[in-house]
């Protein structure tokens, strides 16, 4: 049913797949996610829609192998199929509800961390198709982890690359890169941050310092993705919200990140982490944001 049409390894452990899922493709908008299951006993794994082709009825997903289930997904080959793909879920980015003229006047910057590049791409592409070229800072630990650079370049205004080890572009993380742009006199009036929670937390703090309103996309633990289980709950401005139906995007200045990161650990088992370390060997670098 949900056949895999293309599969590519685009980073040390980042896979890109094009999957047939006509209903999801028909309705998917930037900011939304879907849920996949690798097989009949698979877990329900939420992934952001990274691209869609409404005519072909396909969606693109990009995922990083961080645990047992994403490993299982990475074993699927072209011609094989996911047992389930359901979506699109969650609310689209609020940018797409704004009048185009307003968007064209806005100075928007995206900050993508690691595999967060994929969801940012969908938003940038939509804006580009509507005549809006936003800037983007794409950050990663090192240059091997900077994925989809050419695709990104094609759909944004300025693309600033940043690596923690200085192996490519700006030497430092996305948040420091943003501060540098401000030092150099750049100014923005809207920021979208997508990446690991710890990165979103510090980047949102940076935005606050710079007086820049920001939006973050919360990747909490989820089960159903339809508002039924409450596993994805988080605190936003002191209120309980469900990431799957109230989000996944929220005002970056209001999210309780520490709480959210703690809850993200819920089902991280010791064995799971050990397995990961073993399988990944030298490439292990705590992609999940939990073990450092």
């Amino acid at each position: 049913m949900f056949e895999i049409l293309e599969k590519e390894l685009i980073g040390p452990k980042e896979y890109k797949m094009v999957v047939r899922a006509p209903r999801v493709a028909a309705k998917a908008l930037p900011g939304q996610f879907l849920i996949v299951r690798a097989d009949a006993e698979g877990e329900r794994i939420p992934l952001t829609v990274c691209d869609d082709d409404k005519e072909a009825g396909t969606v693109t997903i990009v995922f990083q192998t961080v645990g047992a289930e994403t490993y299982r997904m990475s074993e699927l080959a072209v011609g094989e199929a996911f047992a389930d793909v359901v979506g699109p879920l969650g609310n689209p980015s609020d940018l797409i509800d704004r009048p185009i003229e307003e968007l064209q006047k806005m100075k928007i910057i995206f900050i993508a961390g690691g595999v967060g590049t994929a969801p940012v791409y969908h938003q940038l592409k939509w804006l580009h198709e509507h005549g809006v070229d936003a800037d983007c800072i794409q950050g990663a630990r090192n240059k091997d982890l900077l994925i989809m650079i050419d695709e990104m370049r094609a759909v944004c205004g300025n693309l600033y690359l940043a690596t923690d080890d200085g192996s490519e572009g700006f030497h430092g993380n996305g948040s420091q890169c943003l501060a540098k742009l401000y030092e150099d006199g750049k100014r923005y009036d809207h920021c979208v941050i997508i990446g690991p929670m710890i990165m979103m937390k510090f980047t949102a703090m940076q935005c606050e310092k710079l007086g820049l309103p920001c939006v973050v996309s919360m990747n909490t633990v989820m089960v159903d993705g339809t508002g039924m289980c409450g596993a994805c709950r988080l605190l936003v401005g002191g209120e309980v919200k469900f990431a799957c139906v109230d989000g996944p995007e929220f005002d970056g200045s209001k999210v309780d990140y520490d709480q959210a990161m703690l809850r993200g650990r819920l089902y991280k088992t010791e064995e799971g982490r050990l397995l990961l370390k073993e399988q990944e060997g030298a490439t292990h670098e705590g992609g999940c944001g939990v073990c450092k």
Partner: protein
Amino acid sequence: MAITVDMMKKVPVREQAPKERAANFEEVCLGYNEEEARAESERCLNCKNPMCVEGCPVSINIPAFIAKVKTGDDAEAYRIISESSALPAVCGRVCPQETQCEGKCIRGIRGEAVSIGKLERYVADRAKELNIKPEPVAKNGHKVAVIGAGPSGLTCAGDLARLGYEVTIFEALHKAGGVLVYGIPEFRLPKEKVVAREIENVENLGVKIETDVVVGRSVTIEELMEKEGYEAVFVGSGAGLPRFMGIPGEQALGVFSANEYLTRSNLMHAYREDSRTPIYRAKRAVVVGGGNVAMDAARTALRLGAETHIVYRRSEEELPARKEEVGHAKEEGIIFNLLTNPVEITTDPETGWVNGITCIRMQLGEPDASGRRRPEAIEGSEFHVDCDCVIMALGTSPNPLLHKTTDGMEVNKKGGIIVNEDEMTTKEGVFAGGDAVTGAATVILAMGAGKQAAKSIDAYLSAKN
């Protein structure tokens, strides 16, 4: 060996012993065998004016089907039940019989009511052995969409298919069944043996089930009607939105909604060793609430190895759960803390994990609007219970997604979809029923609503075409 029947008492039903079953997920109640069913059927007086039928929300002709059990014609008994119910194997197991059919049975005045639920279950299970299948019907060329594959949706779809409609059910999850698959545990309602088979029966009638479709997101009701050619829609989306108490500590690790806990265990099979879905196996679990959901969560936690407590703010008499389940829970060793209400969940500051729950004792005051005596806190009676897991089973409400994405379909203050006496919503051609309308209720009421809606949809489309 013939069974000697005490006319005042039900023929006892065989069950797994409490000690044994507390450690497995096999069905607790083993049901009647042929001999026991025949013996129990002898107790029915075949009343001229059967009160039991009045107590059944779908008016099953109870004396008639029991009379057939008496004569050994189980196939005919099944046919009689099927006239009124699409899910007898389910209802026989989960209906709150004590307040419905059996609550009205004349036998109950001086002794115990006839065991109608167990007999119904017996007949439905026998029908499987006899391999009785519904006959497909010629199609009439009209298309109806059903949203949600729970009891209301399945029933509505089945009835419409019997009338010749081409019916497709759209289900958000990867599996059909609604609460029957994600909520009610295996040990009460076997998934393969009972639920899957009832769903198969609906499919055998020609109903298509498309899973992985979240109506409102994957496709809207308007699009189903305008682009995909469905002439009417039935909304049976249930009441799946969990409630929390809003007390401090509810965000802690180890605090779950019953929905999450049960979904992991049931739908995702986390109770099985070979499942890839994680579930937290607690040492001491506290379940807050007193309904069927609370009992199911508590008994699941127990089976996963926890010492399990139930905290409920009213007294035993008010426990909304089925009597049989409360009895089973007690036998299995669940500890009931009645007239008790949580005020705070405490957390280990180092790990963020729950380490206890502070409760306050309650007393019952004057009756409130619901007619039940209102629980009031006894000041200064707080006490603390250590635990490493808290499960909130406080009730659920309808998911707002469909209302928000469907112009003109109104809901009431509690989020229930508003319908008229024909189950039609405020949007033309769109009908609704079950928990989505009433808020969390029962399987049989949801089924009844599905039946009624099927009739109304048929009348509506017949008048239109």
